[in-house]
């Protein structure tokens, strides 16, 4: 399992003067689900286009299964599958026609690798005569995935496959990816949804063209240096500005119907905070410790930089 599938070494890319990628280095193992996680504009799409041989890196090099993305781009195009951000399908062709066409450009047929897409395709098969343009977001996503898999790629690149798709479809999509892992395909995926990080084996957290952290999601959460308290009171409007006045706290954010207050272990205590709030006139204060999620870690890393 330690064989490397993709090696990205010191890769930079700029558009005119805007730097999209700034000396990025990542190694991705064979058979791994690897996530590039970051907001829009972090450089994910540029990176994916370089990985899929659509753009040149301006510095550094990338190899995929030992092939160089610049020199061996023709060979690479035979062994990778790519699903761009917008579910690139022919809107006026039916589900079946789309699949047949994408199979044919890889010189194969849907039957040849049907075992690979069977689980996914069966869900959309009842609509196989419907034009792709009339499918729901979730179904489009499944069709696009089927099309990207049809030639049995060794490495699968999915650029924001879950953007704009509802929570249920997203969940199902990730389950499909887990199943694909059993076929030994390396899956490289990008997403702006932080909560999807926990579904990857390892993730790279990206911001402004840089990678802030490469780790397994569990380790990222374990490394979070602060404690987080979820706090409520009877005056939820003023509580945030009050809490932000506590000098030793690192941050105070509204999160759902709570305020998440983060602070270094040992520097603040529950009683201290509750007293502080009571002095400010808050009543019915509730105070619970919560675990940091990837989003908290991401924010902490953003603040550090």
């Amino acid at each position, binding site marked *: 399992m330690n064989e490397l599938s993709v090696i990205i070494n010191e890769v930079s890319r700029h558009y005119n003067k805007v730097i999209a990628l700034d000396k990025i280095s990542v190694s991705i193992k064979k058979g791994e689900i690897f996530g590039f996680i*970051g*907001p*829009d*504009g*972090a450089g994910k799409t540029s990176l994916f286009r370089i990985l899929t041989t659509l753009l040149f890196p301006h510095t550094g090099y990338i190899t995929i299964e030992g092939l160089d993305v610049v020199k061996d781009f023709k060979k690479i195009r035979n062994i990778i599958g790519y699903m761009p951000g917008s579910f690139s399908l022919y809107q006026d062709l039916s589900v079946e026609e789309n699949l047949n066409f994408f199979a044919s450009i890889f010189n194969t047929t849907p039957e040849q690798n049907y075992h690979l897409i069977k689980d996914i395709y069966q869900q959309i098969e009842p609509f196989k005569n419907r034009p792709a343009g009339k499918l*729901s*977001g*979730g179904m489009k996503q499944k069709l696009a995935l089927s099309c990207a898999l049809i030639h049995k790629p060794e490495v699968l690149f999915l650029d924001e496959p879950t*953007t*704009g*798709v*509802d*929570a*249920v*479809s*997203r*969940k199902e999509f990730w389950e499909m990816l887990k199943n694909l892992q059993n076929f030994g395909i390396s899956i490289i995926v990008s997403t*702006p*949804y*932080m*909560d999807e990080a926990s579904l990857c084996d390892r993730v790279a957290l990206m*911001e402004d063209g840089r990678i802030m952290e490469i780790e397994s999601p569990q380790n990222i959460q374990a490394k979070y240096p602060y404690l987080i308290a979820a706090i409520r009171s009877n005056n939820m*409007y003023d509580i*945030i500005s009050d809490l932000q006045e506590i000098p030793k706290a690192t941050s105070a*954010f*509204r*999160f*759902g*119907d709570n305020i998440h207050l983060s602070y270094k272990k040992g520097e603040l205590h529950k009683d201290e905070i509750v007293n502080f709030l009571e002095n400010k006139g808050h009543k019915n204060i509730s105070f619970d410790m919560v675990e940091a999620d990837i*989003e908290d870690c*991401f*924010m902490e890393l*953003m*603040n550090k930089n």
Partner: protein
Amino acid sequence: MSKEIIISVQNLMKKFGQFVANDDLSFEVYKGEIFGFLGANGAGKTTAIKILCGLSTPTSGKISVAGFDAYTQTNKIKHNIGYMSQKFSLYEDLTITENFRFYGGIYGLNKKQIQDKTKQLLERLKLEDAKDKIISSIPLGWKQKLAFSIAIMHDPKIVFLDEPTGGVDPITRRQFWELIYETAHQGITVFVTTHYMDEAEYCDRVSIMVDGKIIALNSPKNLKNEYQAKSMDEVFLKLTRN
């Protein structure tokens, strides 16, 4: 919180030929509340929002928005609501101030009002120094906050937010929700759709739509209790996945 009703929907039906997009929807939204409107893709959310914004006529049902009738007074509705979608609607080649001026003009604000509002809203976002920057040159997070500010520039009674936080970084997302919270506190009703289930937790009440029907409507806390779930994500999955 006062329970003044700002949106009232009774037995809303919307059909496209044979297809029923909205099937007998009934709900009320109160003044100053953050109302989450959730549902899977294709559940009929967009159709319902279009009707509430006066862009589409319902097939049947009694609908009033900000006190106006959704069949006959769509123009008055449009004057009393703000709208912001993921695609922003800011003019990329105009400056921040020019965008404010343009949208203020659309809603019939006079020069003085536009100047005051622009100043006030930019101060709140701490973007006074950037007021002459071209929109295309500013970060995504700023655009999002600006688009929201423009949507509430004319002090609407209700602001509709259609997936307002797609693709932004988490810090901006939290700041954005802080902005929403403040807005609601000022008495503007916020009607929001989102795919981030954790965002549903910010809402005072949440409705969940499946196949054109509203199958749940309650506060996030009550929903979590009712469906014995730890998060809204779980509630959503339990409700929509069968």
